[in-house]
């Protein structure tokens, strides 16, 4: 049982970390919902929030707009993924779709609102192009547009992956059995994807319901839960009690949706083999889907075009001359430039520490023989972090760490990001580790390696590509997160997204767009670099395999 000593140490570190930065803060939100600013416990805040006229309407609004957005995003993502997997459009076009569809993910949602305002607003770029305003951007329309574009990458990634794992031979069987095209579509695509489509709907719903960036800019008078929470906390007199109650109510739908996701997981159809087939020729089908996908992407990305134009123009829309003035101004403004440096630093440290923690957790659950109870604890932590919206974690930290040395520091922002995004990296890591041969540790130990050496010499090199993916996931998310940090970033610890939130009050959209471009390019570069590294490490692994294989052959 020597080997469990190290694992138990890892577990202890993780347990302390999440007790301090997840359990205690969340309990304090619960306590505050009864005691507010320190009064005796009562249900007064619940009564006040629930009977307040605005809140229930905001809650209803949140539901309506989130459900509409989730439905629309899932359908559009399905069209994109279908074009990639089930039509014979050119390879390059498929590549373009798969890359373009996830681009919005690399921008903070707070930028979306501005992109919408300066594209579809009264003086907007697209408004000018069409000669008239297409729709009223403030309120439901703007939110819907923003949410759909925001969640399209997530829905697309889910559906696109799942479609890749559908055995397309079933289409042949179905056709040979005399099914009509519609029956084939239902039997071999829709039914196997039902679980994924539901997952996509729920995930996107959850993202819309808890996002703060988009309603902050285009919500208008259409109040949603996130904007109510923000108003309660950062008004002239913060109301801790009401804030806590709103936060708790915000968690309920996410707890329900995550539970449903878990139940759905059991119904996912799994194929043991994926066989590529030649798709039936269908020129009409290909043309229709090529056009549809193109339209979806143009629709989703057109609103960002403005971001690349206005910062380079003297004074939109009055003096339309090209200039680098605004860009220069940002780089010369020590404060603004400093904010960018802060962001990159926070993202890097988040990625590094977050990857370590996710790796540690996954080692405990996927590669050790400690009792199931300990493993369950880690799994539950991942589940809980997945259900808690970023805004709620931020609020909880505000309650607990105000007045401590951690208040207004970078570590608190970094920890908040690590906790907020823990779930996905952990599951990626666990998945990858559990696929590795289970007897490696034993084998290495028989050859005289200590546990640490085994991890360093065998497990880590083989997990390298996943580690890099996790690193990149943490980095990109830390760069774009708004909702998790609005409550905890101080004047000295501004990151780009909170700066944008501040600039919003002064209508400094040139700065906003330049900063957004900086985030976009940083993320693009980071992703490209990590992809590259992951590919290099993967090809090294497969080379090693080929080598092993050839040795075997010779031996035979």
């Amino acid at each position, binding site marked *: 049982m020597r080997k469990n000593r190290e694992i138990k140490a890892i577990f202890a570190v993780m347990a302390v970390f999440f007790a301090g930065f997840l359990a205690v803060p969340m309990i304090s939100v619960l306590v505050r919902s009864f005691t507010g600013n320190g009064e005796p416990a009562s249900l007064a805040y619940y009564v006040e929030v629930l009977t307040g006229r605005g809140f229930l309407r905001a809650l209803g609004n949140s539901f309506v707009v989130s459900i509409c957005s989730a439905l629309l995003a899932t359908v559009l993502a399905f069209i994109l993924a279908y074009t990639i997997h089930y039509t014979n459009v050119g390879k390059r076009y498929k590549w373009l779709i798969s890359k373009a569809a996830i681009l919005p993910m690399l921008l903070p949602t707070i930028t979306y609102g501005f992109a919408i305002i300066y594209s579809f607003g009264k003086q907007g770029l697209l408004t000018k192009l069409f000669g008239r305003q297409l729709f009223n951007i403030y309120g439901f329309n703007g939110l819907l547009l923003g949410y759909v574009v925001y969640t399209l990458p997530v829905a697309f990634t889910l559906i696109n992956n799942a479609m890749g794992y559908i055995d397309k*031979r079933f289409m*042949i069987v179905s056709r*040979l059995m*005399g099914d009509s095209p519609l029956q084939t579509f239902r039997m071999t695509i829709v039914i196997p994807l039902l679980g994924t489509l539901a997952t996509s709907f729920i995930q996107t719903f959850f993202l819309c319901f808890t996002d703060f960036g988009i309603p902050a800019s285009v919500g208008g008078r259409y109040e949603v839960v996130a904007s109510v929470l923000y108003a309660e906390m950062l008004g002239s007199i913060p109301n801790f009690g009401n804030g806590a109650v709103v936060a708790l109510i915000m968690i309920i739908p996410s707890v329900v949706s995550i539970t449903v996701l878990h139940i759905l997981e059991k119904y996912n159809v*799994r194929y043991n*083999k994926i066989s590529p087939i*030649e798709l039936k020729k269908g020129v009409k089908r290909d043309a229709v889907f090529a056009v549809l996908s193109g339209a979806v992407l143009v629709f989703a990305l057109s609103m960002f075009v403005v971001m690349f134009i206005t910062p380079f123009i003297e004074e939109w829309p009055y003096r339309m001359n090209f200039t680098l003035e605004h860009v220069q101004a940002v780089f010369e403004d020590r404060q603004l430039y400093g904010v960018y440096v802060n962001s990159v630093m926070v993202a890097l440290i988040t990625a590094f520490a977050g990857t370590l923690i996710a790796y540690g957790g996954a080692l405990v659950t996927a590669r050790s023989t400690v009792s199931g109870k300990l493993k369950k604890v880690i799994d539950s932590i991942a589940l809980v972090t997945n259900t808690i919206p970023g805004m709620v974690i931020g609020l909880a930290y505000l309650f607990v760490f105000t007045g401590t040395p951690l208040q207004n520091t970078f570590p608190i922002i970094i920890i908040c990001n690590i906790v907020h995004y823990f779930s996905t990296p952990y599951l990626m890591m666990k998945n990858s580790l559990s696929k590795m041969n289970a007897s490696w540790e034993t084998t290495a130990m028989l050859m005289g390696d200590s546990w640490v050496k085994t991890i360093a010499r065998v497990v880590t090199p083989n997990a390298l590509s996943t580690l890099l993916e996790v690193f990149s996931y943490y980095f990109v998310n830390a760069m774009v997160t708004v909702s998790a940090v609005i409550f905890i970033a101080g004047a000295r610890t501004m990151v780009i997204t909170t700066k944008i939130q501040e600039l919003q009050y002064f209508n400094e959209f040139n700065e906003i767009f330049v900063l957004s471009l900086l985030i976009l390019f940083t993320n693009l570069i980071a992703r490209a670099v990590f992809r590259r590294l992951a590919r290099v490490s993967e090809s090294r692994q497969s080379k090693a395999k080929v080598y092993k294989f050839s040795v075997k052959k010779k031996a035979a």
Partner: protein
Amino acid sequence: MLELKNVKKSYDGTPVLTDISLNIEDGEIVSILGPSGCGKTTLLNLILGIVDSDGGQIIYNGKDITDVPMEKRGFNIVFQDYALFPNLNVYQNITYGLRNNPEISSKEEVEDLIRLLGLEEHLNKRISQLSGGQKQRVALARTMVMKPKILLLDEPLSALDGVIKESIKDRIRTIAEQYNLTTIIVTHDPEEALTLSNRVMIINEGQIAQFGRPEEIIQRPENGFVKKFILNQLEIKKNNIFTLFAGQLAQQAQVG
């Protein structure tokens, strides 16, 4: 009778099948045998109609079916991994095709098939509860319900072990005889091919290396490939078996 005339196929300029011509009689069991990458699966796909040929003709009973789409040809296939619908149970899988064409098989015919393949006790099970051999039989039944003119089997035995292999071989033979069904089997295992079929077609590098009855192939291999690839393997197996049974054989010889 199925006839292929000068059929060709290449992918992205790489020829996979160069010039295939062959005849298969009604009710015959034919194995297509060859190493992986030799083009045998492509040949199967061409006959089934999943893949279009680049040249040549496919003729069935005197009719040119080269341009007839897959579902109109009336052939059917059992895939190596069976491709059973995981969301339906055994009986629903078997009768899947009847939802679209109820008149294809009568209730009695379906019951006969179920009995012939020994599936009576499994009808209400989920696919995931079945063993490999059971899945293979369900897939066979599902395909047979469609009354195919030609039955294609893609590596029907490679996922099965020992005893089950032999019993499935028996079932395939029984079905072919009982329904006088032309059966084409793709396999990479010489023993399987030579013991299961009436004639064996050996393919190498996109061409037919030899097409003949099992005993012809054993006695008169037509080229080096057949000798090296097919006979060598069987020779080793034979010697192993002889060594195993050496004592017993010696005894029998003495008694005789």
